[in-house]
């Protein structure tokens, strides 16, 4: 029968629990050491790759930027063009007289030759058109023509008179 003999002094003998703790600490420190090495190597490698990637994106940005700067003249043209177009659009949207004139022109284009222009007034967004005809039929034809045309603006008859000298006089309010 073999016997375990402890030659250490009794006060230097570790308890069982302390021995267990020591072996756990030893194992964990070795494991953690390995983990630190792996994390450090992998981490630095990943950071290196990401920085490389960043440099590539930066280079691409600089290349495109220099190409854009080379086209500065085109950009000036575009800014100028867009500025003018916006202002022209504003001028046109505030123009109330031209649409009224165009409406009057459509009416005149639809008028038979017997209908003559008496007066036309366009001012501050309102307009009136006076048409004269020796007989009533051409005026009827005008109204019929307008009904079948693409004319779509408000139109009202202001006065309709008969004068022995000039014939029928039709005053239209074109809005």
């Amino acid at each position, binding site marked *: 029968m073999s016997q375990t003999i402890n030659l250490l002094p009794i006060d230097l003998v570790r308890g069982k629990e302390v021995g267990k703790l020591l072996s756990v600490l030893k194992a964990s420190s070795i494991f953690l050491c390995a*983990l630190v090495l792996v994390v450090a190597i992998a981490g630095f490698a990943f950071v290196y790759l990401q920085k490389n990637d960043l440099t590539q994106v930066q280079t691409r940005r600089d290349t495109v930027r220099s190409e854009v700067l080379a086209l500065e003249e085109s950009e000036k043209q575009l800014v*100028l*063009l*867009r500025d*003018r177009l916006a202002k022209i659009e504003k001028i046109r949207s505030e123009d109330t*007289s031209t649409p009224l004139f165009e409406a009057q022109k459509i009416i005149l284009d639809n008028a038979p030759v017997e209908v003559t222009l008496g007066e036309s007034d366009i001012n501050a967004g309102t307009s009136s058109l006076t048409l004269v005809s020796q007989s009533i039929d051409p005026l009827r034809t005008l109204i019929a023509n307008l009904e079948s045309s693409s004319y779509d603006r408000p139109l009202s008859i202001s006065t309709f008179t008969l004068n022995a000298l000039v014939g029928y006089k039709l005053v239209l309010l074109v809005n």
Partner: protein
Amino acid sequence: MKQLKVYRPVLIYGFLTAAFVMILLFLGSYFISTLSEINVQKASLNQDVEVLTSRLAVLKDLPSAAPNGASITLTALPSENNSLVAVSQLRRIATENEITIKSLDLAATLATGTLLPSVLINFDFEGTAVNSISFIAGITKLAPIMVIDTVSLQSTADGNGVSAIMGVRTQWAELPTALPAITEPIAALSDEEQLLLSRLSELTQPVFGQGVESSESASVGKADPFTTAQ
């Protein structure tokens, strides 16, 4: 002392374990902060690349999308008082329509608020009814653009023609002075802008050179009005 000797390896390995944990935490936080910083920079750079690429495409496409666009619009809406060109244009189409302009005067209006500076051209003319209508219609198709202010048209006593008093307004606007920052996106011309540009290109252009401001004249012969925002 003897107890310390017994527990020394425990202390050493305990310390090592704690140290490795600390190192791991430090490395973890370092990598996380470094990588997130790189990612932020990369996202910002990628956004810049995206904006710059679209800007480049728009600028490369401009000559084909709007050939002479700046020149056409600058003739339609000049940068300086161009009323003499407007008068010349009026006289030109008056002649074409056999209209006699009897008197003509100009009155300038300064820019106020959002209103552009303008010149009101008042004139009297005579002609046949058909020619007068054609003349007025022609005015709306002239460059520089002219807006009808007032029209008062009356048939003459003999009934053969009309006499008219008319006011048209021609405007101008200063050139833009700033370019957008290079990192700001710019859009290509919209369909509405293209349509307006195509209508402007159909306007009757002035025939003589001094009133026509080309796009080049905005930067050549004058100080370049643009400043670039970086």
